[in-house]
């Protein structure tokens, strides 16, 4: 008996050690500023680098050091991983992966191109983008358009295992980056415009076996909540918290898709992410709060059980997906050290929460033009505590089917979409790429067919009345909920930002500029026009004693759909393309990585 017990304990210890090793290895690697080992830079999703060779004083001298064509066109979201002397570059569909040796003149050591059915392409709502690969345990993980999650040997590119995460025949596709946490790799799924019941799934790192799957809507066992211990704003969510907010079986085609970013706090073993819009875009067809769409989730990384949740936009009427990154920071607030989570939602509100308890601390507009809500009820004893107060004039539910509700800000693409912000612990400011666009939105009845779009709204977009610029790059104070500085941009800023210890913040523009600004003041210090519009995320690394800045160019994504032809002035009866620039006059399709450094 003792022998068996000891053996069991021994094997448990080995298992735990194995899991802990993967965990510790990645945490340690993410603390090496020379590398960029996970899609968001680190588990906290700060997109901040300690590298300081490039500074506000010398960034004006930045030059292109080398370039690489991806061999693919259409929207290039995400960015490369850099681990030691190896760089891993990914592409939109067909989702090629290149492994380059940075110490050998960027020689292509291996490349991987999955075989995918091109019929998955029209099931991708918003261009054939991919937000990047993940690394862990000597493997590169790619989340393919057809929802396959594949594990490649990082040294050779050979397939170690492969699993199908969803069914494109039912409208599910893959665009998000996976994330390795301990002995598992986690991945979300897309399909909110196709009535997919979306989920986050954890697979075993070594074998690809499914460990847990948590849906965004459905019965308690499917959404993995405990009615008594999972809380929202401090209160247990109770039994059937999701299905009682849907009519009949609608939760089965409910959406709540998980195509955004994942962050993780190893100290409390919680993974954080947000869910997207409920299906359809016609709110009248799905009465109820539609929980848990538009929700911030904090789940135990080992079991998937939700510790806390918070729904930001109950009964969505505008397609304000809640999937944007959850940035984790430890800051002083109200005289105490707080463990915070900051999130810039599509709905135009910048949220600050306590990431341990899910307490809501701040919810303020990060674009002054946001008008669908007067704000979130912050009164803890109010029956509507935590809910946004909806303005009737901009409520498409109130307007009803077949009525065009006009002048809603932000437009469906939100004040910010997936393009991730950055946080600098040096300035304690968040650097946020934003959209400055409003819309008319008319819902109407649609019918569901598996694998076909299930949308149900007509959309028309334009800059806020009286203005002609469609984007701002801002600095935000998450402790007070205030914009500190704001730089206008002609087009929406659709790239991920990067903050560095050198006091510089980087971002890319839809015209194709890589820009560097002063982290304190926002003053523009450098810009360079890359070959195509930028919707990728700026990344930095060090190789051979030099700091490099890398960014993918290749216009597309939702910006490429809505902005290519230019927006029209709704007050102009003839629909002339007023003074609003057409993106197609500034850039054409491309696919390349441009890497910058200071001159030697």
């Amino acid at each position, binding site marked *: 008996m003792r022998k068996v017990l000891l053996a069991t304990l021994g094997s448990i210890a080995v298992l735990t050690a194995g899991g802990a090793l993967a965990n510790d290895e990645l945490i340690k690697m993410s603390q090496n500023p020379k590398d960029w080992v996970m899609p968001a830079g680190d588990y906290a999703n700060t997109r901040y680098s300690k590298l300081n060779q490039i500074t506000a004083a010398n960034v004006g001298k930045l030059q292109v050091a080398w370039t690489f064509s991806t061999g693919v066109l259409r929207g290039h979201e995400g960015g490369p991983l850099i681990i030691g002397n190896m760089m891993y570059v990914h592409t939109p569909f067909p989702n090629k992966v290149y492994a380059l040796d940075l110490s050998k003149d960027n020689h292509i050591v291996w490349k991987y191109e999955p075989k995918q059915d091109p019929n998955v392409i029209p099931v991708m709502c918003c261009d054939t983008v991919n937000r990047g690969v993940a690394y862990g345990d000597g493997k590169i993980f790619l989340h393919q358009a057809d929802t396959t999650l594949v594990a490649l040997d990082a040294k050779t590119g050979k397939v170690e295992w492969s699993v199908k995460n969803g069914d494109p025949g039912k409208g599910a596709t893959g665009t998000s980056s996976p994330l390795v946490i301990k002995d598992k790799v986690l991945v979300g799924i897309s399909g909110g415009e196709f009535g997919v019941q979306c989920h986050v799934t954890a697979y075993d790192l070594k074998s690809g076996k499914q460990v847990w799957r948590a849906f965004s809507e459905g019965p308690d066992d499917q959404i993995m909540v405990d009615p008594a211990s999972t809380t929202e704003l401090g209160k247990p969510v109770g039994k059937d918290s999701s299905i009682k907010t849907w009519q009949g079986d609608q939760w089965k085609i409910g959406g709540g898709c998980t195509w955004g970013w994942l962050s993780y706090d190893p100290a409390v073993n919680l993974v954080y992410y947000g869910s997207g819009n409920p299906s359809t875009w016609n709110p009248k067809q799905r009465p109820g709060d539609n929980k848990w769409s538009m929700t911030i989730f904090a789940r135990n990384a080992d079991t998937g059980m939700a510790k806390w949740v918070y729904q930001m936009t109950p009964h969505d009427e505008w397609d304000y997906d809640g999937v944007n990154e959850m940035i984790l920071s430890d800051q002083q607030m109200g005289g105490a050290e707080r463990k915070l989570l900051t999130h810039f939602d599509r709905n135009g509100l910048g949220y600050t929460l306590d990431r341990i308890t899910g307490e809501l601390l701040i919810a303020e507009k990060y674009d002054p033009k946001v008008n669908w809500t007067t704000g979130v009820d912050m009164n803890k004893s109010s029956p509507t505590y935590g809910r946004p107060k909806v303005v009737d004039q901009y409520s498409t539910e109130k307007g009803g089917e077949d009525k065009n509700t006009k002048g809603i800000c932000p437009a469906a693409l939100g004040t910010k979409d997936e393009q991730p912000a950055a946080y600098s612990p040096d300035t304690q400011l968040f650097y946020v790429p934003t959209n400055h666009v409003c819309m008319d939105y008319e819902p109407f009845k649609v019918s569901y067919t598996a694998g*076909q779009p299930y949308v149900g709204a007509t959309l028309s977009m334009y800059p806020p009345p009286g203005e002609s610029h469609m984007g701002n790059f801002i600095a935000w104070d998450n402790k007070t909920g205030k914009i500190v500085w704001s730089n206008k941009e002609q087009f929406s800023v659709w790239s991920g930002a990067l903050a560095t210890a050198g006091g510089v913040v980087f971002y890319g523009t839809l015209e194709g500029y890589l820009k560097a600004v002063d982290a304190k003041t926002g003053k523009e210090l450098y810009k360079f026009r890359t070959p195509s519009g930028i919707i990728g995320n700026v990344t930095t690394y060090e190789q051979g004693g030099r700091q490099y800045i890398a960014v993918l160019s290749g216009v597309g994504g939702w910006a490429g759909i809505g902005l290519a032809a230019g927006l029209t002035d709704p007050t102009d009866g003839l629909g002339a393309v007023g003074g609003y620039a057409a993106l197609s006059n500034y850039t054409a399709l491309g696919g390349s990585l441009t890497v910058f450094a200071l001159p030697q």
Partner: protein
Amino acid sequence: MRTIWFLGAAMILVVSGGMAIAESPVDPAAVKSEDGKYLDKEGNPTFKVASDGTVDWYTYSGYRRYHSECHVCHGPDGMGSTYAPALTESLKTMSYGDFMNVVASGRQNGNSVMPALGDNPNVACYMDDLYVYLRARANDAVGRVRPAKKEDKPEAYTQAENSCMAKR
């Protein structure tokens, strides 16, 4: 003189030859109407825009359906996106039959894939609406704007719509 005549004839032949290769667009003028749907001289659906800007029901309905189902790839007002063609251009020469075929069965050009929407009632029940709206856009009869004035929704249309949507 003879040389000029000869060259002129040659040019006309070349030009006609060129046009014969491309589809010559049918005159989109509405010559008759049935239950609020206007038809051109070949009997295919077409648009009707009055001098005060009032559009027929199908043009108006097509605007709405386009901006729900097609806009996500083809951009606003049929203007195209970074990857899908501007249908205001395509519909200059595409016939009604070809349009129905592509929308219903899809089309693949390498990694450029138009889905088959024939089994999607949200599209299939509104094919004529989409065709008429895009034809109006291609012929510059309607600008980049939500039509402000429209004819009333025909009763026969409502019946057909309900019947089509209910079937699927």
